[in-house]
Protein backbone atom coordinates (compact mmCIF):
# COMPACT_ATOMS: atom_id res chain seq x y z
CA UNK A 1 0.00 0.00 0.00
CA UNK A 2 2.95 2.32 0.36
CA UNK A 3 2.63 3.53 -3.21
CA UNK A 4 -0.59 5.25 -2.13
CA UNK A 5 0.98 7.12 0.78
CA UNK A 6 1.99 10.13 -1.40
CA UNK A 7 -1.72 10.88 -1.86
CA UNK A 8 -2.05 11.73 1.82
CA UNK A 9 1.27 13.59 1.87
CA UNK A 10 0.43 15.76 -1.12
CA UNK A 11 -3.07 16.41 0.21
CA UNK A 12 -1.79 17.73 3.52
CA UNK A 13 1.02 19.64 1.82
CA UNK A 14 -1.24 21.47 -0.66
CA UNK A 15 -3.93 22.05 1.95
CA UNK A 16 -1.29 23.74 4.10
CA UNK A 17 -0.15 25.82 1.14
CA UNK A 18 -3.69 26.90 0.27
CA UNK A 19 -4.65 27.83 3.83
CA UNK A 20 -1.39 29.75 4.21
CA UNK A 21 -2.33 31.68 1.11
CA UNK A 22 -5.71 32.54 2.58
CA UNK A 23 -4.11 33.79 5.77
CA UNK A 24 -1.51 35.76 3.81
CA UNK A 25 -4.22 37.31 1.66
CA UNK A 26 -5.98 38.42 4.82
CA UNK A 27 -2.86 39.76 6.52
CA UNK A 28 -1.01 41.43 3.65
CA UNK A 29 -3.85 43.22 1.92
CA UNK A 30 -5.30 46.36 3.42
CA UNK A 31 -8.92 46.50 4.50
CA UNK A 32 -10.74 49.67 3.62
CA UNK A 33 -14.28 48.63 2.91
CA UNK A 34 -16.88 50.89 1.39
CA UNK A 35 -20.48 50.14 0.63
CA UNK A 36 -19.96 50.18 -3.11
CA UNK A 37 -16.91 47.95 -2.89
CA UNK A 38 -18.79 45.24 -1.04
CA UNK A 39 -21.71 45.21 -3.45
CA UNK A 40 -22.03 42.43 -6.04
CA UNK A 41 -20.76 43.64 -9.39
CA UNK A 42 -23.47 44.58 -11.78
CA UNK A 43 -21.80 46.92 -14.25
CA UNK A 44 -21.66 49.80 -11.80
CA UNK A 45 -25.34 50.11 -10.95
CA UNK A 46 -27.04 48.84 -7.83
CA UNK A 47 -27.84 45.13 -8.08
CA UNK A 48 -31.40 44.34 -9.13
CA UNK A 49 -33.04 41.53 -7.19
CA UNK A 50 -31.33 38.47 -5.81
CA UNK A 51 -28.75 36.52 -7.76
CA UNK A 52 -30.24 33.25 -6.64
CA UNK A 53 -32.94 32.64 -9.17
CA UNK A 54 -34.25 29.45 -10.62
CA UNK A 55 -32.55 28.28 -13.75
CA UNK A 56 -33.48 26.27 -16.77
CA UNK A 57 -34.30 22.62 -16.17
CA UNK A 58 -31.79 21.80 -18.91
CA UNK A 59 -28.95 22.05 -16.43
CA UNK A 60 -30.64 19.36 -14.36
CA UNK A 61 -31.06 17.17 -17.41
CA UNK A 62 -27.42 17.58 -18.35
CA UNK A 63 -26.35 16.49 -14.86
CA UNK A 64 -28.71 13.52 -15.03
CA UNK A 65 -27.43 12.39 -18.43
CA UNK A 66 -23.89 12.89 -17.20
CA UNK A 67 -24.43 10.48 -14.29
CA UNK A 68 -25.92 7.84 -16.55
CA UNK A 69 -23.24 7.99 -19.22
CA UNK A 70 -20.53 8.28 -16.58
CA UNK A 71 -21.68 4.99 -15.08
CA UNK A 72 -21.49 3.53 -18.56
CA UNK A 73 -17.92 4.80 -18.88
CA UNK A 74 -17.09 3.29 -15.51
CA UNK A 75 -18.10 -0.12 -16.79
CA UNK A 76 -16.09 0.38 -19.96
CA UNK A 77 -12.83 1.06 -18.13
CA UNK A 78 -12.22 -2.36 -16.51
CA UNK A 79 -13.43 -4.02 -19.68
CA UNK A 80 -10.87 -2.11 -21.73
CA UNK A 81 -8.09 -2.95 -19.30
CA UNK A 82 -8.64 -6.71 -19.33
CA UNK A 83 -9.46 -6.97 -23.02
CA UNK A 84 -5.87 -7.30 -24.21
CA UNK A 85 -4.66 -10.01 -21.88
CA UNK A 86 -7.57 -12.14 -20.76
CA UNK A 87 -7.10 -15.08 -18.43
CA UNK A 88 -7.69 -18.56 -19.84
CA UNK A 89 -11.25 -18.86 -18.59
CA UNK A 90 -12.48 -16.02 -20.80
CA UNK A 91 -12.45 -15.93 -24.58
CA UNK A 92 -11.95 -12.63 -26.35
CA UNK A 93 -14.87 -12.80 -28.80
CA UNK A 94 -17.16 -13.58 -25.86
CA UNK A 95 -16.01 -10.57 -23.83
CA UNK A 96 -16.29 -8.45 -26.98
CA UNK A 97 -19.87 -9.59 -27.50
CA UNK A 98 -20.74 -8.93 -23.85
CA UNK A 99 -19.70 -5.33 -24.14
CA UNK A 100 -21.39 -4.84 -27.50
CA UNK A 101 -24.71 -5.99 -26.01
CA UNK A 102 -24.20 -3.53 -23.16
CA UNK A 103 -23.39 -0.72 -25.58
CA UNK A 104 -26.29 -1.45 -27.90
CA UNK A 105 -28.80 -1.24 -25.05
CA UNK A 106 -27.33 2.08 -24.07
CA UNK A 107 -27.27 3.24 -27.66
CA UNK A 108 -31.03 2.73 -27.74
CA UNK A 109 -31.30 4.96 -24.70
CA UNK A 110 -29.04 7.55 -26.29
CA UNK A 111 -31.12 7.67 -29.46
CA UNK A 112 -34.32 7.90 -27.39
CA UNK A 113 -32.96 10.78 -25.38
CA UNK A 114 -31.79 12.52 -28.55
CA UNK A 115 -35.16 12.10 -30.25
CA UNK A 116 -36.89 13.49 -27.18
CA UNK A 117 -34.83 16.64 -27.60
CA UNK A 118 -32.74 16.62 -24.45
CA UNK A 119 -29.75 17.89 -26.38
CA UNK A 120 -31.69 20.72 -28.07
CA UNK A 121 -30.26 23.47 -25.97
CA UNK A 122 -31.78 26.41 -27.84
CA UNK A 123 -35.39 25.16 -27.87
CA UNK A 124 -38.04 25.92 -25.29
Amino acid at each position, binding site marked *: *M*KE*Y*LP*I*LVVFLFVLGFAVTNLVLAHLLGRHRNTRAKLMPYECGIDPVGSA*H*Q*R*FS*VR*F*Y*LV*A*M*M*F*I*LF*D*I*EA*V*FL*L*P*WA*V*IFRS*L*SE*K*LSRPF*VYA*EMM*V*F*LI*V*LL*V*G*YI*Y*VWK*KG*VFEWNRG
Partner: protein
Amino acid sequence: MFELPIQQLIFLFVAAVAVFAAFNVILQRNPIYSALALIITMCALAGTFLMLEAQFVATMQVIVYAGAVMVLFVFVIMLLNVRTEEARQDRVKYLKLVAPLLFIALLGEVIFVARSVTTTAPPLATTGNEPAFGTVESIGEAMFSSYLFPFEATSVLILMAMVGSLVLARRRTMSEAETLGKLIEESGKPQLTPAEPVAKLEEKKEEIAA
Protein backbone atom coordinates in the same frame (compact mmCIF):
# COMPACT_ATOMS: atom_id res chain seq x y z
CA MET B 1 8.02 -1.29 5.70
CA PHE B 2 5.39 0.67 7.59
CA GLU B 3 4.07 -1.19 10.55
CA LEU B 4 0.55 -1.08 11.88
CA PRO B 5 0.61 2.14 13.94
CA ILE B 6 0.85 4.48 10.98
CA GLN B 7 -1.85 2.60 9.10
CA GLN B 8 -4.11 2.78 12.12
CA LEU B 9 -3.41 6.48 12.51
CA ILE B 10 -4.34 7.15 8.89
CA PHE B 11 -7.44 5.01 9.24
CA LEU B 12 -8.53 6.86 12.37
CA PHE B 13 -8.00 10.19 10.61
CA VAL B 14 -10.00 9.18 7.55
CA ALA B 15 -12.76 7.55 9.59
CA ALA B 16 -13.05 10.58 11.87
CA VAL B 17 -13.42 12.85 8.84
CA ALA B 18 -16.10 10.56 7.42
CA VAL B 19 -18.12 10.45 10.64
CA PHE B 20 -17.77 14.16 11.33
CA ALA B 21 -18.86 15.06 7.79
CA ALA B 22 -21.75 12.58 7.96
CA PHE B 23 -23.04 14.26 11.11
CA ASN B 24 -22.77 17.57 9.31
CA VAL B 25 -24.95 16.27 6.49
CA ILE B 26 -27.79 15.81 8.96
CA LEU B 27 -27.18 18.76 11.25
CA GLN B 28 -26.67 21.52 8.70
CA ARG B 29 -29.80 23.53 8.03
CA ASN B 30 -28.63 24.90 4.71
CA PRO B 31 -29.02 22.18 2.05
CA ILE B 32 -25.95 23.26 0.13
CA TYR B 33 -23.79 22.75 3.24
CA SER B 34 -25.33 19.32 3.66
CA ALA B 35 -24.50 18.44 0.08
CA LEU B 36 -20.90 19.63 0.43
CA ALA B 37 -20.53 17.66 3.68
CA LEU B 38 -21.83 14.60 1.86
CA ILE B 39 -19.12 15.04 -0.77
CA ILE B 40 -16.49 15.07 1.99
CA THR B 41 -18.04 11.91 3.46
CA MET B 42 -17.82 10.19 0.08
CA CYS B 43 -14.16 11.14 -0.34
CA ALA B 44 -13.32 9.96 3.18
CA LEU B 45 -15.08 6.67 2.46
CA ALA B 46 -12.92 6.34 -0.63
CA GLY B 47 -9.96 6.69 1.74
CA THR B 48 -11.19 3.82 3.89
CA PHE B 49 -11.73 1.69 0.79
CA LEU B 50 -8.16 2.41 -0.19
CA MET B 51 -6.96 1.31 3.25
CA LEU B 52 -8.77 -1.99 2.61
CA GLU B 53 -6.81 -2.47 -0.63
CA ALA B 54 -9.95 -1.87 -2.68
CA GLN B 55 -8.19 0.55 -5.03
CA PHE B 56 -10.59 0.40 -7.91
CA VAL B 57 -13.64 0.78 -5.68
CA ALA B 58 -12.01 3.78 -4.02
CA THR B 59 -11.57 5.63 -7.32
CA MET B 60 -15.08 4.68 -8.41
CA GLN B 61 -16.43 5.99 -5.13
CA VAL B 62 -14.96 9.37 -5.97
CA ILE B 63 -15.71 9.38 -9.71
CA VAL B 64 -19.30 8.18 -9.52
CA TYR B 65 -20.59 9.26 -6.12
CA ALA B 66 -18.57 12.33 -5.22
CA GLY B 67 -18.00 13.37 -8.83
CA ALA B 68 -21.22 12.60 -10.68
CA VAL B 69 -24.13 11.95 -8.32
CA MET B 70 -23.31 14.89 -6.09
CA VAL B 71 -23.05 17.22 -9.09
CA LEU B 72 -26.72 16.49 -9.68
CA PHE B 73 -27.54 17.14 -6.01
CA VAL B 74 -25.70 20.43 -6.02
CA PHE B 75 -27.30 21.41 -9.32
CA VAL B 76 -30.78 20.70 -8.04
CA ILE B 77 -30.16 22.69 -4.87
CA MET B 78 -28.80 25.59 -6.88
CA LEU B 79 -31.45 25.33 -9.56
CA LEU B 80 -34.43 25.15 -7.28
CA ASN B 81 -32.78 27.73 -5.08
CA VAL B 82 -33.68 25.78 -1.98
CA ARG B 83 -33.24 28.08 0.99
CA THR B 84 -32.60 27.10 4.56
CA GLU B 85 -34.72 24.18 5.56
CA GLU B 86 -37.86 25.64 7.06
CA ALA B 87 -38.60 24.76 10.63
CA ARG B 88 -41.90 23.03 10.26
CA GLN B 89 -43.86 20.64 12.38
CA ASP B 90 -43.30 17.03 11.53
CA ARG B 91 -46.55 15.89 10.09
CA VAL B 92 -46.05 12.24 10.80
CA LYS B 93 -45.56 12.01 14.55
CA TYR B 94 -44.99 8.28 14.82
CA LEU B 95 -41.87 8.56 12.64
CA LYS B 96 -40.07 9.93 15.68
CA LEU B 97 -40.75 6.65 17.43
CA VAL B 98 -39.86 4.47 14.47
CA ALA B 99 -36.53 6.17 13.80
CA PRO B 100 -34.75 5.02 17.01
CA LEU B 101 -36.01 1.48 16.45
CA LEU B 102 -34.67 1.45 12.93
CA PHE B 103 -31.41 2.90 14.15
CA ILE B 104 -31.05 0.14 16.76
CA ALA B 105 -31.86 -2.49 14.14
CA LEU B 106 -29.23 -1.08 11.80
CA LEU B 107 -26.67 -0.86 14.58
CA GLY B 108 -27.32 -4.47 15.50
CA GLU B 109 -26.90 -5.48 11.90
CA VAL B 110 -23.59 -3.62 11.62
CA ILE B 111 -22.29 -5.21 14.81
CA PHE B 112 -23.36 -8.63 13.59
CA VAL B 113 -21.62 -8.18 10.25
CA ALA B 114 -18.51 -6.72 11.85
CA ARG B 115 -18.25 -9.69 14.22
CA SER B 116 -18.79 -12.30 11.56
CA VAL B 117 -16.14 -10.94 9.21
CA THR B 118 -12.77 -12.59 9.51
CA THR B 119 -10.06 -10.15 10.45
CA THR B 120 -7.35 -11.57 8.25
CA ALA B 121 -6.09 -9.26 5.54
CA PRO B 122 -7.02 -10.05 1.94
CA PRO B 123 -4.41 -12.02 0.02
CA LEU B 124 -1.99 -9.49 -1.38
CA ALA B 125 0.61 -11.58 -3.13
CA THR B 126 -1.37 -13.96 -5.28
CA THR B 127 0.01 -17.06 -6.82
CA GLY B 128 -0.22 -17.82 -10.51
CA ASN B 129 -1.47 -15.26 -12.99
CA GLU B 130 -4.59 -14.18 -11.08
CA PRO B 131 -4.55 -10.38 -10.83
CA ALA B 132 -4.02 -8.97 -7.33
CA PHE B 133 -6.98 -8.15 -5.09
CA GLY B 134 -8.76 -4.87 -5.67
CA THR B 135 -7.01 -3.98 -8.92
CA VAL B 136 -8.84 -2.94 -12.07
CA GLU B 137 -7.88 -6.25 -13.65
CA SER B 138 -9.35 -8.39 -10.88
CA ILE B 139 -12.63 -6.44 -10.92
CA GLY B 140 -12.79 -6.69 -14.70
CA GLU B 141 -12.16 -10.44 -14.72
CA ALA B 142 -14.85 -10.99 -12.10
CA MET B 143 -17.35 -8.69 -13.81
CA PHE B 144 -17.13 -10.38 -17.18
CA SER B 145 -17.24 -13.94 -15.90
CA SER B 146 -19.01 -14.51 -12.55
CA TYR B 147 -21.07 -11.33 -12.53
CA LEU B 148 -22.00 -11.21 -16.18
CA PHE B 149 -25.75 -11.11 -15.66
CA PRO B 150 -25.77 -8.20 -13.17
CA PHE B 151 -23.49 -6.36 -15.57
CA GLU B 152 -25.83 -6.76 -18.54
CA ALA B 153 -28.82 -6.01 -16.30
CA THR B 154 -27.15 -2.71 -15.39
CA SER B 155 -27.42 -1.57 -18.98
CA VAL B 156 -31.18 -2.06 -18.84
CA LEU B 157 -31.25 -0.26 -15.50
CA ILE B 158 -29.42 2.71 -16.98
CA LEU B 159 -31.81 2.69 -19.93
CA MET B 160 -34.76 2.80 -17.54
CA ALA B 161 -33.15 5.63 -15.62
CA MET B 162 -32.74 7.60 -18.86
CA VAL B 163 -36.38 7.23 -19.75
CA GLY B 164 -37.52 7.86 -16.20
CA SER B 165 -35.53 11.02 -15.68
CA LEU B 166 -36.78 12.33 -18.98
CA VAL B 167 -40.39 11.67 -18.06
CA LEU B 168 -39.94 13.48 -14.77
CA ALA B 169 -38.17 16.44 -16.31
CA ARG B 170 -40.56 16.72 -19.22
CA ARG B 171 -43.57 17.16 -16.98
CA ARG B 172 -45.03 20.52 -17.59
CA THR B 173 -43.41 23.35 -15.74
CA MET B 174 -44.82 24.50 -12.43
CA SER B 175 -47.13 27.27 -13.65
CA GLU B 176 -48.47 25.13 -16.45
CA ALA B 177 -49.19 22.26 -14.11
CA GLU B 178 -51.09 24.59 -11.82
CA THR B 179 -53.19 25.92 -14.66
CA LEU B 180 -53.86 22.38 -15.71
CA GLY B 181 -55.05 21.50 -12.22
CA LYS B 182 -57.41 24.48 -12.19
CA LEU B 183 -58.85 23.55 -15.56
CA ILE B 184 -59.54 20.03 -14.33
CA GLU B 185 -61.26 21.46 -11.25
CA GLU B 186 -63.35 23.87 -13.30
CA SER B 187 -64.60 21.14 -15.57
CA GLY B 188 -65.73 19.29 -12.44
CA LYS B 189 -65.18 16.00 -14.15
CA PRO B 190 -62.17 14.29 -12.62
CA GLN B 191 -62.69 11.31 -14.87
CA LEU B 192 -62.16 13.19 -18.11
CA THR B 193 -59.31 12.15 -20.37
CA PRO B 194 -56.05 14.01 -19.92
CA ALA B 195 -56.09 15.22 -23.51
CA GLU B 196 -58.96 17.61 -22.88
CA PRO B 197 -57.44 19.93 -20.30
CA VAL B 198 -54.17 19.88 -22.20
CA ALA B 199 -55.96 21.10 -25.30
CA LYS B 200 -57.63 23.80 -23.20
CA LEU B 201 -54.27 24.78 -21.81
CA GLU B 202 -52.92 25.21 -25.32
CA GLU B 203 -55.91 27.45 -26.12
CA LYS B 204 -55.30 29.54 -23.05
CA LYS B 205 -51.65 29.87 -24.00
CA GLU B 206 -52.61 31.09 -27.45
CA GLU B 207 -54.99 33.60 -25.87
CA ILE B 208 -52.20 34.92 -23.70
CA ALA B 209 -49.87 35.05 -26.67
CA ALA B 210 -52.49 36.92 -28.68
